[in-house]
Structures are given as C-alpha cells and as structure tokens.
C-alpha cells in the first residue's frame, strides 16, 4: 500500500500525459497538470520554509556554533514574509500587486536580495579566474582546443579582439577574431551542443520510461518515511 499506490499514480499520470499528445480532447491535460504543479509547489515551499525555521531554531536552542547568524536568518525570513503577505508599505491598497514599486517587499528585493544575489554570482568571476589558470594550461591536445576556443570567444566579444585583427583584408574576413568567434558558435560549437542535447534527450526518455514503468523507485525513499 505504501509503495503500490504511489507506483500506480506515477504509471497512471505518466501514461495519461503521453496518451494526451495523441488524443486531441485530452490535449489540455498537460496545462492542467502544470497548474497542479504550481499549486503543489507552494505547499512544498510551506515544508521548505518550515524546515528552514526548524533547522535554525534547533541551532539557536542548542547554542551551536554561529547560532547568532540563525537569528539573522529567522528575522530576515519573518520580515520578508510579513512585508509580502501583509503587503506592508504598498502604495496602493491590499488589492495592488505585491511587487508594486515602493512596497517594502519590492524595496527588499531591489536593495537586499538583488545586490546579494548578483554579488554572489559576481564573486564567481574571481574563482573562474583561478579555474581559468588551471584550465588554460595546454597540457594535451584536448585542453589546447578548449583553450583556443575559449580564448577566441572571449576576445571575439571585446573591442580588443576586433582591433587585434582589423588589419586582415576583407577577402579573409573570416579570420578576423569576431567573425571566427561567430563561426565557432554557429558550427563546431553547435555540433557539440547537438550531440549533448541528443544524448540528454535519449537519457531523459529512458529515465522517464523507467519511472513510469516502476523500474526506478528511488524517489519513494525507504519505508521509514
């Protein structure tokens, strides 16, 4: 019962969606299910949010290392929840959009979440630089090809790359770095991308079949759940 019903649901829903492609009256089923997903996702976020609170409250109660930062996380979480759910500071009334300019929720996004998020990603630029150092050592033929492709793409998108090969006559313009970068993107890169995409596609198809037919069951976890 604990395992058979979920396996049946997976089989039934998966098969139904596949059949819906071939049976016109069932065509909208995919859209309906997508809506279900969206609603289920909110409840999953209830669980996620609850789990976040539980983890940090436990850390706080047990005075684990860095417990002070858990207070910050909890306060931040509570603040944005209150600002968003009660639409605090919204310029319009309660019916206006939660993301209206000037609302506490939107201001928190603009001046807290957005700077933090983009700086986190920007920080990766420094780590990419050190990774480049390791990747750009032409140790063998394959690494050399990677290096040359990356270098041409990088140079091709900068004014420096354009200036570097501007002297090449128009009849050989393909060898100008920006044009070479475009050609790499449109031909050899596309070929590699296609091989990867076809591989992923076949992998997804086989994995989907395994799930629908109940061969792959790891998502059910163990029976202690």
């Amino acid at each position, binding site marked *: 019962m604990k395992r058979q019903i*979920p396996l049946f*649901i*997976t089989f*039934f829903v*998966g098969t139904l969606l*596949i059949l819906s492609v071939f049976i016109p009256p069932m065509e909208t089923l995919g859209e*309906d299910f997508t809506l*279900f997903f*969206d*609603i*289920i*996702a*909110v409840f*999953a*976020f209830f*669980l996620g*949010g609850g789990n976040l609170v539980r983890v940090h409250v436990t850390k706080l109660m047990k005075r684990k290392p860095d417990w002070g*930062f858990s207070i*910050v*996380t909890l306060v*931040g*979480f509570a*603040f944005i*929840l209150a600002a968003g759910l009660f639409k605090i500071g919204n310029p319009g009334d309660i019916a206006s959009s939660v993301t209206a300019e000037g609302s506490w929720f939107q*201001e*928190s996004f603009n001046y807290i*979440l*957005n*700077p*933090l998020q983009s*700086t*986190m*990603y*920007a*920080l990766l*630029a420094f780590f*990419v630089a050190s990774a480049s150092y390791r990747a750009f050592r032409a140790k063998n033929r394959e690494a050399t*090809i990677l290096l040359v*492709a*990356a270098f*041409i*793409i990088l140079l091709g998108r900068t004014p420096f790359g354009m200036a570097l090969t501007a002297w090449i006559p128009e009849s050989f313009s393909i060898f100008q770095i920006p044009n070479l970068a475009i050609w790499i*993107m449109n*031909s*050899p890169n596309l*070929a*590699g991308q296609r*091989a990867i*995409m*076809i*591989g992923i*596609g076949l992998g*997804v*198809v086989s*994995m989907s*079949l395994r799930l*629908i037919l109940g061969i792959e069951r790891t*998502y059910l*976890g163990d*029976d202690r759940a």
Partner: protein
Amino acid sequence: MEHFAIWVAAFLTMGIFSFLYKDNAWYKLCEAIFVGISAGYWFVTLFWDNIYGKFWVGKGDDSMLYIGAFLGLLMLMRLVPKIGWISRWPLAFIVGATAGFYLINYFSSNVMRQVEDTIMPLLGPDYSAGAYDIIGNIVIAVGTFSGLVYFFFSKEHKGAFGATAKVGIFFLMITFGASFGYTVMSRMSLLIGRLDFLFGDWLGMIK
C-alpha cells in the same frame, strides 16, 4: 530613504566581496540575510502568483484545481510521522507527470528536432550554398555524428570507432571552451555591474 537603502545595498555587496579575503563574520552575516530573505521572497511570490492568482482568483469554474490543492495538502502529511508516507502520493504525481511530459517533449525537441536539423543537404536546398556555408554544414554533420559516437559506451572505443569518438571529443572540447568563455564573460559583466553600483550609485565617482 533611498539613500539609506543604497547604503544597505553597498554594505551587503562589500560583505559578500569580503569573502575574497577569507571567511569572516561580515560575510556570514550577509549570507544569513541572503538565506532568510531569499526563502521568504520565493515563498511570498509563489503564494501570490499560484495560490492567490491561479487558485483563489483565477480558478473560475475549473474545479479540477481542487485536485491540485488536495495533492498539495497531502504533501504536508510529511509533518505527521505516522502518516508521512501519504506525502508520497503528490510526489508520485509530480514524478509521473514530469516523466510523461518530458518523455514526449524531450524526444521531440532534443532528439527528433536536432536530428532533423542535422540531416540536411550539405550544398544547400537548391545547391545554392556558398563555400562558407558548405564547410559549416559539413562541420555540423561530422561534429554531431562523431560527438554521438563518443557518447556511445556499449562498444569499446578503438579502431575506426575510437578514431571517430576522438574527433567527437575535439568537437565537445570546442563546445566546452565556448561555454567556458561565455561563463567567464557573464560573471565579468556581473562583477562590472556591482563595481558600477559601488563606484557610481554609492560613491558617486562614476557619473
């Protein structure tokens, strides 16, 4: 008020950058704020968009959506250890629907469409392609085929098969190089954006 908000944003931006020196309390503070605010932000966004927008207001006569809400409620059964196993039902629904949806869509877009676009007249539909396009078409056909040969692991990579797989590796390396180049550029542009904020919006040194 906006002036204060810019100072807050600058404080948080520099806090994250402080990690470049070493893991420190300032960075951890910013990280803690990020976790809390980020989780709450997505929760609120999903609540207003999905529960309010699609279920409460947008439902109309579509009573089918109650099934979605019911499945969502079952998800919360995980919180009750004795009947936690019921939360597998919405999970099974999501897994089944995703599998069914992806099976068709990936097969159509990632496999059939890509194969169709690769198998094409090398000299153009009416033999009108120029040398540049012909070389490009040949490179795409050879690269895709050899790349696929590389991903075929049911046969040992030696002899002619191995040589083709080797050519496939070269094409894949070009793809990885191109992706790497793009990643570096996107991260750099984000970094420039943050520096532009610090020196422009905050310090006013860039007009």
